[in-house]
């Protein structure tokens, strides 16, 4: 199980060496990155198959927790680490002038994303989070347009602001407990963090890590960044990175901050996210910003779902998150040739019939039409929200419902314009084969998910029950009891 560290170390060492390799052979440098990601994905899959219901902890540097840094892998963490590797592989930057730097950054993103999912140390999570942030600045700015620089710098400010708040939160936690190991924090939390200071620390970290998870007040960067970044990068950010940030928040919630107030804060912010995101998307007039706003709404649904206490919440949120993880990158891949004004899309089905069908499939699943997986995820969330017998949670269910109704309107307004026969205007050019192939792969995954919903649901429920299991986490990491 020591290979766990390879998921981080391998892409990282490749990234460091890529400029050097490029000097020897450009061809090797081009293929090295995808190859290494393939290898890490294979390692991840083999670890997954070994893992089963158990979890493993790797003590980096050979130091017992809580002294050293621990990597913790249960199926949830491994799943997201794997998703990062595979997602980066699928959305590998297209060849351009800056391909070398972009490949380097993409490799680091894969490494840091996996690390973020696996890390079991609060400060280490912060460092990984910052790493992901810096990588994404580089990837967003890769388009080298004035707009993308401005968007990046605005994103950078919000993100650094959030990261500094998260660091403040970490300082508060360390001040209260004297440790950073999540397992030990989990042990100490009931006595040390169940107070105003703990709540403040959580809210600070929620806002800090929420920047990447498109949490309501700190998501102003989303529309402009997704409108200016390369579409593949947008797909990665919206699809994968946002889920990683969410994963951290969920870990913190499950292990450390299980106070009802913390859940309430998340619920309210999630609802605001759904309301603002879906409403803003309704009026968006270009494709990228439409799906950007819509992803704010979707992430809001995840926050609402994760705010349900107990295993049910983890299960519901995880289902929505995994669904979104498949759908959103595919949407952004379609945006590759469809970005720009929605009016330009009239008749797009003529030049890209497969793309149009894919969009409709994705949209149907996104708004939750049975029997696609999106429906089951939504049903799960709604049922569990209503089961709370609590007004605020019921309001959450209503908000999700209203959001979906709005979303159906704006998504299908676009979808039906694909089939308009407009004489005066030429439809957009066909999609790049690679984009379309990747999007089709994801779409096929969605259909497969609909067909195999029964085993899939069981599997996800297993993952969620493991993720919600505090005792297993603590026992697996087994931090030494210190005076």
């Amino acid at each position, binding site marked *: 199980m020591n290979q766990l560290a390879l998921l981080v170390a391998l892409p990282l060492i490749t990234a460091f060496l890529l400029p050097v390799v490029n000097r020897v052979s450009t061809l090797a440098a081009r293929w090295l990155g995808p190859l290494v990601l393939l290898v890490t994905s294979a390692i991840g899959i083999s670890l997954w198959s070994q893992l089963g219901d158990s979890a493993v902890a790797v003590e980096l540097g050979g130091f017992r927790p809580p002294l050293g840094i621990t990597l913790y892998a249960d199926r949830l963490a491994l799943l997201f680490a794997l998703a990062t590797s595979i997602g980066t592989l699928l959305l590998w930057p297209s060849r351009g002038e800056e391909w070398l730097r972009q490949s380097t950054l993409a490799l680091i993103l894969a490494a840091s994303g996996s690390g973020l999912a696996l890390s079991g140390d609060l400060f280490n999570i912060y460092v990984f989070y910052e790493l992901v942030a810096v990588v994404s600045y580089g990837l967003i700015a890769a388009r080298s347009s004035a707009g993308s620089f401005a968007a990046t710098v605005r994103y950078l400010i919000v993100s650094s602001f959030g990261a500094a708040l998260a660091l403040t939160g970490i300082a508060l936690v360390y001040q209260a407990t004297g440790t950073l190991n999540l397992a030990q924090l989990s042990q100490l939390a009931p006595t040390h963090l169940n107070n*105003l200071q703990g709540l403040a620390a959580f*809210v600070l970290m929620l806002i800090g890590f929420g920047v990447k998870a498109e949490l309501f*007040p700190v*998501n*102003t960067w*989303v*529309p*402009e960044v997704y409108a200016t970044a390369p579409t593949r990068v947008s797909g990665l950010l919206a699809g994968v990175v946002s889920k990683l940030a969410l994963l951290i928040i969920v870990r913190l919630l499950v292990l450390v901050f299980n106070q009802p107030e913390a859940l309430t804060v998340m619920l309210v912010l999630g609802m605001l996210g759904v*309301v*603002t*995101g879906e*409403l*803003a998307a*309704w*009026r*968006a007039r270009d494709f990228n910003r439409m799906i950007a*706003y819509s992803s704010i709404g979707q992430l809001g649904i995840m926050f609402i779902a994760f705010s349900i206490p107990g295993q049910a919440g983890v299960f519901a949120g995880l289902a929505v998150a995994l669904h979104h993880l498949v759908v959103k990158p595919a949407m952004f891949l379609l945006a590759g040739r469809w970005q720009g004004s929605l009016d330009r899309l009239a008749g797009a089905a003529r030049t890209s019939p497969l793309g149009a069908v894919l969009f409709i499939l994705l949209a*149907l699943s996104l*708004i*939750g*039409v*049975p*029997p696609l997986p999106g*429906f*089951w995820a*939504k*049903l*799960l969330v*709604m*049922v569990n*929200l*209503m*089961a709370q*017998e609590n007004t605020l949670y019921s309001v959450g*269910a*209503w908000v999700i*419902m*209203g959001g*979906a*109704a*709005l979303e*159906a*309107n704006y998504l*299908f*307004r676009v979808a*039906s314009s694909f*089939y*308009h*026969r407009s004489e005066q205007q030429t439809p957009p050019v066909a999609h790049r084969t690679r984009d379309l192939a990747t999007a089709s792969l994801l779409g096929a995954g969605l259909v497969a998910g609909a067909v195999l*919903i*029964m085993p899939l*649901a069981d599997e996800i*429920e297993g993952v969620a029950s493991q993720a919600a299991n505090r005792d297993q986490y603590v026992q697996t990491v087994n931090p030494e009891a210190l005076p």
Partner: protein
Amino acid sequence: MTPLDQLLALSALTVVAVWLIGNRQVTGWNATILYAAQGVLLMMMSDLGYGEVQSIASSLTFKVLGHGLHWRFDGLSWFFALITIGAAFLASWFASGEWGQRYRAAGGSLRLFHVALALNVFSMLVLLASGDLLSLFIGWELVSWASFLIMALGSATATRYAMRYVTYAFAGAMAVLMALVMVYTRSGSFEFQDFRDAVPAMSSGSLWMIVILFVAGFGVKMALIPFHLWQAKAYAETPGPGAAFLGAISSRMGLFALVVVLVQLVGVERLADLQLVFPFFSARDLLSWLAVLTLIFATFTALRQHDARRLLAWHGIGQGGYMLLGVLIADDLGSAGGLMHVFNHATYQAVLFMTVTAVIHRTGTSDLNKLGGLVTRMPLSFVAMLIGIIGLAGLPPMNGFVSKWLLYRALIIDGSPLLFLGSVVGTLGTILSVYKLIHNTFLGQLRLEHVEVEEAPSSMIWPMMILSTIVFVTGYFPGLVLDWVASAQAAVGLPVLAHNLGGVPSHKGGLDMIWVVSVLLAGFGIGALVFFSGGRSKRVHQLDNYAGGHFLTAETRYQYSDNFYPGLMHLIGPWYRKSFRWLERGFVSTVDTLSQAMQGFYRVVHPSFYLLVAVVSALTWVVAR
């Protein structure tokens, strides 16, 4: 494989087969044959229709997230399925001949059309077969999106109206989902039985909420007021045979779902117990009045239309009111009337849509102000429309009379004079507007440009004739249909109507259509005898316009067909204008304003304001702790 499995499998196969055959003339014929085969399979389940078997289950079951999903057919499903497959069979037949050639030549894809139609049939069968709330919802969504597909096939205008439909329909579906979830939290499962058991324990507030959500969701499909705005235009823009199919059965799916939920599961008595603010106005009254208002409003809106398709589509909305009203009366007569009306309405609505499509096919227009005098050109179509409108108006000897008679009778027995009055007003409006329809199309002055018009092709005439015959025969022998209706009543737990071949045996005043029609026919026969035996007047050519000492040329429009019923229009006009549009428009502009404000948050307004709000609220919270 149970018979139900076979039916569903064949229905799914039809979709695939039609897709594979592609955009060819032969597609329609193949589809027609496949629908006939589906009809045969359905007939093999006819024990359901005659109440000899309670239900036939599908062997297909799933368990997703701990919720069971299963499907079965009972008397009610069988009854609706019969109408569905019959309508699809005839619509597909209608679409297979010259209509299909023309459609394909105009750039339409017959593959898409027939796939959409087959998908509609399949999804409706799935919905009808649903055996629990979750499969009901899944079937519901399938039906919604399938009809979106067929509606969006037409021009850009059609897509726009279909878009409007999908907005309403999905919002409605979300309401249904919400209701489902609320039921789930109270009954612990999505099973029908658990819901039924949980109803008595539910508080009246939550039951109100659930009923309203269900009605809002399913009412969208039935175009119940105030969710009706989408339907007429969307149906009118649907390709002709598609409109006939949708008009015949699609909206009735909403009725089916409402019957299952409100009658079978909640129970009409419980609805009558659910009081609003006034102690004498219950949920049942509310729904009944919604039904009657829909009837009146839609019928008089139909009266105002000058496009034949829209006129019919509005009538489709209005007639739905009768059905719901009948079911809500919930005694043996009323519910039989409501359910039988589903069948009757499907037959004459289909024949009327087909006639109009045939007229469009020959003349190129459905504008009632640009037609007239076609009776000599298209006599068979005229006969079909005549039978259709007599049925629609609810006059003997057609089947529409039987269902309305049952309904009125039930309303009188039930002691609801105001509802009765409302229904009669609706019927009056119907009679006025169907007269306008047939007059402006077939009677009156022939337009010169239509002198060369021929009778509709045989591929259109045959389905029309078959349907007309059904309209007449089931009016003559209503017992044929009442058998099925009775087992449908039994399936949802309503009191079963005692009936015989001619109608209702005399209990509280019976009805025997065999007598009624025979007497009527005899009267007609005597009249005809007198007419033909008497001296004949001179036969004048239709274009011979000598009148009142004046010679008029054939171009002169001496008989106006527009501006029908001006006095009545003047009277009711102010009540109608934009009344419900305001609601929709107000909603849309509210969303628009909010959307603008939200975009403002994301792009324009300085963040300090929002942070201020956040900080202050956090502070209050901290201090309050």
